[in-house]
């Protein structure tokens, strides 16, 4: 148990939050009509100017631009952790573990698709540097067993080793996704309980719990909407976190028959009421955005009120990730000629 005070890190995180893209920035970005214009705006007017300083915005590859933005968020996390040697605390490996799980899941998708030779192009070397296994070696994976060989000395091996392919030779990505992410959430909870105490532990359990609880709310909706799943089926895909929804409402929610019924019940929960008050009326089309909005709103509130470094780093990283997602939404929207109004509706700005 570590009881510590890292006020400088808290201040640094909050300062960084002050530099985030504001509504005016998004408005300006939405006025742009080409990727170079977006890159130029980011280079001239935002906190991304340093990481884009060597980039020729007139010719930058869209994919590379997105990669640079993601890399910058990751580097910001590394810098914040290194600032007061927080990287020595085991919990602060959570971001690396999350990245590793995402890469493994993507690799399985490529194995199923039979396009493993292209997988290497999707691996970001900056993630590989912090990985607990040789991530770049995944570029050589051609079969599921190749993957298991590489993961042999990692905790992931035990989790996915017993998976069998179906008749078409495909592995069940959904199940592996649930297994790995459940492992991740449990790891985060254990790390919090092990590494922190008192109010830090309480705040961290609260904020991580809320964020995963909200993910559960959306995942349950997806299952309800696309496969009409019942509570029994849904309970398998939920992250192991206690829900903030009252037991009665929770069962009512899970036992709804249609997506519309689900939304009606959700509106009567604390989350639903908050979304309606702070953002908009929940609908089938907007629920993903609404839930993301609420997750970010919670992260922002915790960042503002908390005075401990763990909460600050966790929440600022969550918000920065959303910021990059927003920029990528604009880039993709412009690339595919999506109307500005529609792009704007997809942005999560809290």
């Amino acid at each position: 148990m570590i009881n510590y005070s890292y006020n400088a890190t808290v201040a640094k995180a909050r300062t960084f939050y002050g530099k985030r893209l504001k509504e005016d920035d998004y408005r300006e970005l939405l006025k742009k009509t080409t990727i170079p214009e977006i890159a130029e705006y980011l280079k001239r007017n935002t906190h991304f100017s340093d990481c884009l300083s060597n980039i020729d915005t007139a010719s930058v590859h869209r994919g590379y631009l997105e990669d640079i933005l993601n890399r910058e968020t990751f580097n910001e996390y590394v810098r914040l952790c290194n600032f007061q040697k927080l990287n020595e605390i085991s919990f602060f490996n959570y971001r690396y573990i999350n990245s590793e799980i995402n890469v493994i899941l993507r690799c399985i998708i490529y194995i199923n698709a039979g396009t493993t030779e292209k997988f290497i192009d999707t691996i970001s070397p900056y993630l590989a540097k912090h990985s607990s296994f040789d991530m770049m070696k995944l570029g050589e994976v051609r079969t599921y067993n190749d993957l298991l060989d590489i993961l042999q000395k990692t905790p992931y091996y035990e989790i996915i080793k017993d998976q069998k392919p179906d008749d078409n030779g495909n592995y069940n990505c959904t199940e592996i996704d649930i297994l790995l992410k459940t492992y991740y959430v449990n790891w985060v909870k254990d790390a919090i309980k092990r590494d922190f105490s008192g109010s830090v532990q309480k705040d961290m359990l609260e904020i991580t719990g809320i964020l995963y609880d909200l993910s559960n709310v959306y995942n349950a909706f997806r299952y309800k909407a696309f496969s009409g799943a019942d509570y029994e089926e849904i309970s398998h895909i939920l992250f192991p976190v206690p829900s903030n929804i009252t037991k009665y409402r929770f069962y009512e929610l899970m036992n709804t028959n249609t997506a519309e019924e689900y939304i009606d019940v959700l509106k009567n929960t604390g989350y639903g009421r908050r979304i309606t008050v702070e953002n908009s009326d929940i609908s089938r089309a907007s629920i993903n955005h609404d839930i993301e909005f609420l997750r970010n709103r919670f992260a922002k509130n915790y960042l503002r009120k908390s005075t401990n470094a763990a909460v600050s780093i966790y929440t600022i990283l969550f918000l920065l990730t959303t910021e990059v997602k927003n920029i990528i939404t604009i880039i993709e929207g412009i690339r595919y000629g999506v109307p500005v109004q529609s792009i704007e509706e997809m942005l999560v700005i809290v």
Partner: protein
Amino acid sequence: MAIEKLEAVDITCYIEDLNEVLKKCCQSGCFHIEPPDNSKGEKFRLLNEENPYESLITELSSFFSKVGIKYEEKNFSSLKEESASELSVLTDEIKSDILKNIEHTEELSEDIKHRRQVAMYLSHLEGIDEDYQKLFSCKNVSVRFGKLPIESYEKLSYHKDKPFIFNTYDNDGEYYWGMYFVPSSIKDDIDDIFSELYFERIRLPDFVEGTGKDAKINNEKAIFSEREELKNLKKQIDESIDKNKEKLNMIYSKLVYLSGIFELRREVVLYDDKYILIKGYVPSKKSEEFISLFKELDTVTVLSRPCERDNRLNPPTKLKNNIFAEPFSMFVEMYGLPSHHGFDPTMLVAITYTLLFGLMFADLGQGIIISIAGAFLWHVKKNKLGAILERVGISSAVFGFLFGSVFGFEHLLDPVFRNMGFEEKPFEVMDNINTILYGAIALGVVFIVITIIINICIGFKQKDYERALFSNNGIAGLVFFIAILGGLVGNLILGMNLLTPVYVVFLIVIPALLMFFREILGCLIMKKPIEKVGVGDFIASNFFEVFEFGLGFATNTLSFVRVGGFILSHAGMMSVVMLLAEMAGKSGSILVIIIGNIFVIGMEGLIVGIQSLRLEFYEVFSRFYDGDGRAFEPVNMKIKNINSK
């Protein structure tokens, strides 16, 4: 301290002669045109035509800003062209050559920009020892030039089974610059791989030839020669602009003039589709001279009559002041011009403002600095505020001399005073605080009394007896104010009890009652019907108004305490500067004194300027001044104003 007398002028002419008549009006430099009154009848109408010069002015103005010509007003008498079309042809002749060259420079600049971009690419590909043209002409092998992020470069080894070769020639820290070769038959697949790796392809233009080094050198040579060409072209343009600048300005000036004249056509009335009526005013002393301008035009009739003879007229106001007071008309105009039959307070403002500023900012050295700075602003920059500073600076210097203060040095002038026969400086500010504060109040009393007397005179002149006799700024108010002051001074300072029953009844109560019943008394004297109001309303409103008058006298008088306050504040601030200078030691003291003086001149100068103006507007103007007049604007000035808009 006067308003110039004007004569009303009516001009009648045929519509054909209108332009000529308007030009004569402009030429006179003293004709104020009146907006038309079109409510006379069906046969009268206004001229609503489109101004043909406006578009030409806009066009020429944008040309001026494009080529960097600064508009200067020129004499255009040598230009024979009059109509818009003639002037348009003339302008186009001059502009066309310059515009053609400008277009060429833009093309060249664009080309240079492109070549510089290519030069940047070539600098990274300098190591290529094969001829670019040879590489371009390969049939079975495709070549792609470009840059690959360093992180992606590391992944190339995972594609070693694919048939491509990637040659690198440079590494700029973010990218590897180079080219890859691929069999043309599978180029799309390899292009896909490179695209996934974020390869940014560069398409080199056809003019790139030779090896990497040769291509770079050739491109630089081309840039150099294009730059030379651009330089020569710009020189030619500059010469051409210099040669034609004068003429273009003449054309522009003429267009502005003709456009202004055309705009004036909207200010006249057309009668019976044939005749034109123009109404306006000229200064009386220039009336004959003005009429004589139209002698050669037989069909034009000009009639004039003094404004005083016709009560229906509402003439504009032309202020006439001497060289000292003239700049202060700015403050008067800021508040509002007096009406033509009103009172011009410019001289009063000039004297009182100068006095107040000098008193509140008394320093010989700083006054001289302000005066010099003001003179510079006025004579070089033509800023009217500069002329005011020039005058108030002298006033500061005079009072500074009397108070013996030079840049905060309070005893620098002592030898001068001794030579003049004084033991020491005649007035030490910090030793006479009470005298200064009482003096400031006394000054306020004098100011208020003068302004009430002015108001009484204006009231009599305008036959407004309520204003002259019974108002708070009339005789009743004056007696009331002086009586109360006299009583207070007698009791508190002189030790005499003047407040006897007779004194109180005749000099305080009766004037107060006169003010109370001022509206009724005014109507009775001027034989006007009395407005009927309820007794309760009448008593309540007049009681509070008279109460407010009394309160106003007290607060207005005390308001002048600020004059004394600023005298003390100035002395106090300079003593702080001196104290700081002393603390700074020998080396720093001069710097502290200089910075301190600049600070005091800047900050206190500004505050004193504003406070003096406040006293003028609130304590002086509010007692007698209406500011409901409109400016006399000669048509030639009006044309300039129209065009500057």
